[in-house]
Structure formats: C-alpha cells, structure tokens
C-alpha cells in the first residue's frame, strides 16, 4: 500500500484547497515558524481518526476549521483526504496498478465529523481499521510530532513501554 496524495481544504491555516503529491524517497517540508508545516501533520493524524482535540492542539474539535484572519472570514467546514493505492508487483517485476482508496474526513461547525471511503460514508471505526491494517493510525509511531522526542525522554518507564506495544 502506498500513500500517494494528501488534500487539505479549510483545515487549520490551509484556507484554500491544497494538494501534496507524495513521491518516493525523502520529502522535506520547510518554511518559516508558524507557516503551517505541523498543521499538515495534524491533518494526517486527523483524517486517520484522531478523536481528541487536545492531541491536535485545540480546545474543541471545531478548532481544526480555518478560523479566519484579519482579512479572511472563518469557514464553516474543513476536509482532509488521503489517496492510498494498492500496487501489485507482477511476476515480471513491473508494477500493476491496483485499487485506489480515497479516505476523507469532513467536519462542519457545531455538527461533528463524517468519514468517507471512495465517497461512501463510513463510520469512524471503519476508517481507523483501514489505517490500522496498514500500520498507520493517529497514534502510530509513524507520525512523530514536534516535541514527541522530549516527551519520550521525560516519560515514566511504564509509559515508555507502550511504544513496544505499538510494535507488537
């Protein structure tokens, strides 16, 4: 399974629709303080089914919706999609394109989140299972957030053991 694309629309500081095409190897995300880099990581964590607004630096889940600036009004919804694709390697070592999955989460102000897989509405649980089957998830070790290294250093040994349970 590959992660091919991330699309943000109205998520935190990404007021306009923004697409990130993810290619092989090492991709750097750079820019000044406060420009939105960690927000992109939050969007992935969110679409994978994060349920706690605290884990997204907010004081309620609606805080992920673009809240406006001096010059732009706030929005009423936010959407994040990820495109995953299953690639089969054929016997002659060439790649055969496989199934594509678009997982989308949409939140509307004051009315909660809805989840979709290939445009069909699903429950949060279905989406969480889909990602878990691919070793992904909002608290998977595959997303290391800013400050998480310090948190691991300072955590009590019993807390730290839970990292191993992730691998089990």
């Amino acid at each position, binding site marked *: 399974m590959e992660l091919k694309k991330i699309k943000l629309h109205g998520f935190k500081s990404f007021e306009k629709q923004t697409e990130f095409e993810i290619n092989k190897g090492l991709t750097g995300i*750079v*820019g000044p303080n406060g420009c939105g880099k960690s927000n992109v990581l939050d969007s992935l964590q969110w679409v994978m089914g994060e349920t706690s607004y605290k884990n997204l630096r907010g004081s309620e889940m609606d805080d992920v919706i673009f809240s406006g600036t001096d010059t732009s009004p706030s929005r009423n919804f936010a959407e994040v999609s990820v495109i995953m694709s299953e690639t089969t390697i054929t016997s002659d070592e060439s790649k055969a394109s496989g199934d594509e999955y678009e997982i989308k989460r949409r939140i509307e102000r004051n009315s909660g989140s809805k989840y979709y897989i290939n445009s069909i509405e699903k429950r949060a649980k279905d989406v969480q299972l889909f990602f878990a089957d691919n070793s992904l998830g909002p608290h998977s070790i595959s997303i290391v957030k800013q400050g998480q290294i310090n948190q691991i250093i300072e955590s009590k040994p019993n807390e730290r053991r839970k990292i191993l349970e992730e691998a089990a």
Partner: protein
Amino acid sequence: ARERLQQSYEKVNSNFKHLFEKLFDGGKAELKLDDNEDILNAGLDIVAWPPGKKPQTISLLSGGEQALTVIALILAVFLENPAPVCILDEVDAPLDDTNVKKFCDTLDDLSKNSNTKFLIVTHHPYTMSRMDRLFGITMAKKGESIMLSVDLNQAEKMVNEEIVA
C-alpha cells in the same frame, strides 16, 4: 499477549542496538524491561554508552545525545511494522552538524531498503540538502498557508537568501 510483547521487545531491542551504533558511529545501547516477571506492566529503560563514555541511563545524556538515542528507538519500533509513510517533525533540532549528517545517512538507508516514503519537517539547511524534493510552505497572505513545490536547486537559493535576510 505476554509472549507477543516479549518477542516485540527482543526484535525492537536488536534493531535499536544496530541503529544506535550507526547513529553514534560506535558506542553501545540497549533497552531494558525493569520487571522480567510481569512484562505487561514493566517499565522500559534505555541504557546507553556513547563512544568512550560510561553506561548511563538516558536522563544523564546530553540533549542531543538523548534525541539521537530516541530517534534510534523510534526507527527501531517502526521497522517492526513499517507503514507506507514515516513522518518526522523537526527531530533534528537539537543535533549538531555531525549528527544531522548521520541522521540523514540513516534515512537514506531506510529509504533505499524499503517502500516507505519519508516526510521530514526541518529548519536545518543540511537536512534540506539531503532530501529528494522539498515542499516549501509560506503564508503569502498573513494567516493563510500556501504550498510551493521546490526542486533542490531552487531550495539552495532560497536557503541562502534566508541566511542573508
């Protein structure tokens, strides 16, 4: 469940020892469960001795040594269940130039030996120079993020302008 945790502990420990030695160019480290009986409730300790130093618990190491040790641990766990993507947010912040280079060498290795795509948020010019491509994010209009995809030659020019600015 106890057996699964024991197995995952042994595999992660073996990955961890190997990654630590690569990142520190020597030295030794290991993960210890402080309760060999009831491992489901045990604490996980990290003992490390960077090259030439005495074995110490992770809390006695320097800021950069701690970060590099935890990077080894995180990647050791990741390798047990590799996901299609691995995302690291500014983990290179406390590293000196030599360790940033070792960190990038390790990412190169992992990337070449797997299908995992890496997304690396960084402020470090050296890390940027080791990426295959860069997504530059800016706020052209105050408070609104926009993305520019940057090829590496353009990036170098951008970084030099930032340093001069």
